[in-house]
Structure formats: C-alpha cells, structure tokens
C-alpha cells in the first residue's frame, strides 16, 4: 500500500484527482468569491464613477436630493 509518512506529498504526483474532491474545491472557491460578489457595488465606487463621468455634477441616485425646489 501507499506509505504516506512524509507530509510533503509532491502535488504533481497525484495524477487522477478525485472528482468529489475537485467538486468540493470548486464549490469552496465559488462560495468564497460569490460572497463578495453578492455585496454589490459599494457606494464608494458608484460615487467614484459618477464623479469621473465628466460633465454631470448631478448626484441623483434616487435620494431625497431633489426636494429643495423652493416650495414650502
């Protein structure tokens, strides 16, 4: 049988990787990644792109910003 006493099993040695392990790795990787993706676009970046958009100094992101139209 295989003698697995040395810790450093050379990674290249494993020819046929177990499909189950591979799918777990894939799953973990995507879970880690998607966790961040799901956070969406932080305000900081939305802001940045809007500012750099050039001509439009018009922050209208659906907030109550356009309420001050002079009416009392």
């Amino acid at each position, binding site marked *: 049988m295989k003698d697995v006493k040395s810790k450093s099993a050379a*990674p290249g040695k*494993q020819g046929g990787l*177990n499909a189950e392990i591979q799918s777990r790795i894939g799953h973990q990787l*995507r*879970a*880690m*990644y998607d966790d961040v993706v*799901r956070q969406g*676009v932080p305000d900081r970046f939305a802001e940045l792109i809007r500012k750099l958009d050039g001509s439009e100094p018009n922050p209208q992101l659906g907030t109550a910003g356009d309420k001050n139209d002079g009416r009392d």
Partner: protein
Amino acid sequence: MPLTDSLRDDILASVPSLRAFAISLSGNGDRADDLVQETLLRALANIDSFQPGSNLPAWLFTILRNLFRSDYRKRRREVEDADGSYAKTLKTQPAQSAHLEFEEFRAALDKLPQDQREALILVGASGFSYEDAAAICGCAVGTIKSRVNRARSKLSALLYVDGAEDFGPDETVRAVIGGSGGY
C-alpha cells in the same frame, strides 16, 4: 471609445467581481478595495484604448491584475489573515463550522504560488474561459490549463491529504484518503 452611459454602467456592473478577484488575490479587504479603485481610475483614464465590442470584464481584470502584480513586487504579500481580517470584509458571516472550513480553504489558497492562484480564480470562480484567462495573464492557454491543474492538485493535497483530520468529517473523503487501513 468614449465613456458612454452604457459603458459606464457596464464598468459599474463589473465592480462586484473585480472586488471578489482583488480580495482573492490580495487576501485583504481594504487593500482589495484600493486595488479596485485604482483599477477604475486607470480604466476611466484609458477608456479610449478600450476596443468597443471586446470583453470589458477581461480588460478590467487585466488592469487589476497588473496593478496587483506591480504592487506585489514592491511590498511583500501580507499574510495577516490568520486573524480573520478577510472574513471581516464579508457581510454575511458564515456559520461557525462553515467558517472554519472557509478559513482553512482561504489559508490553503494563500499557499499556492501566485500564478496558480490567479489562474484558478479566473477560471474556477470568475468563470473566464481558458482563453480569456490566458489573455488576462499574458500567457499561453496551455500554461493557464497547467496552472489550474497544479493549483487544484495542490489544494487537494493541502486540504484533503495533509489536513484530512482538521478538515472535518466527510465519509467520502475519508474513505478515499484512509483507504489503506491506517496501520
């Protein structure tokens, strides 16, 4: 091409995956967001060099990767994440056991050589084709394939062979690893 509204929206739509890529590369949430910010600034400054109709995410990922690379050369990677600074960047904390598993995975990923890590992330998480990943990394498609394969073998060895005891009870995995009876 000029920065049209739709191009701007597309750039914005790429931000979540740019962040995920940056965090995966750097292992550090704050630094990742700085990287994303620099990427956006650079992209917008060079928007004229973007070819309309070409792959915008790939273009942005290329910029981010190059920034990360040049930054990396200057200061060595901070492997400070043992205390969970990465996990703190997540809004939804995974449940305890899942959290441990997650930390282990993260630590194993950190042990991969940079070339392999980025190839694996681009193909395995970002969902780029081997061709796109090769373009992003500036290497041959075959090189990407072999890096991805080596990354997978190494992760598998780190997580499921060396660390089998720590990883947690999974009958299938144990059966595979402990198949020789253990005497």
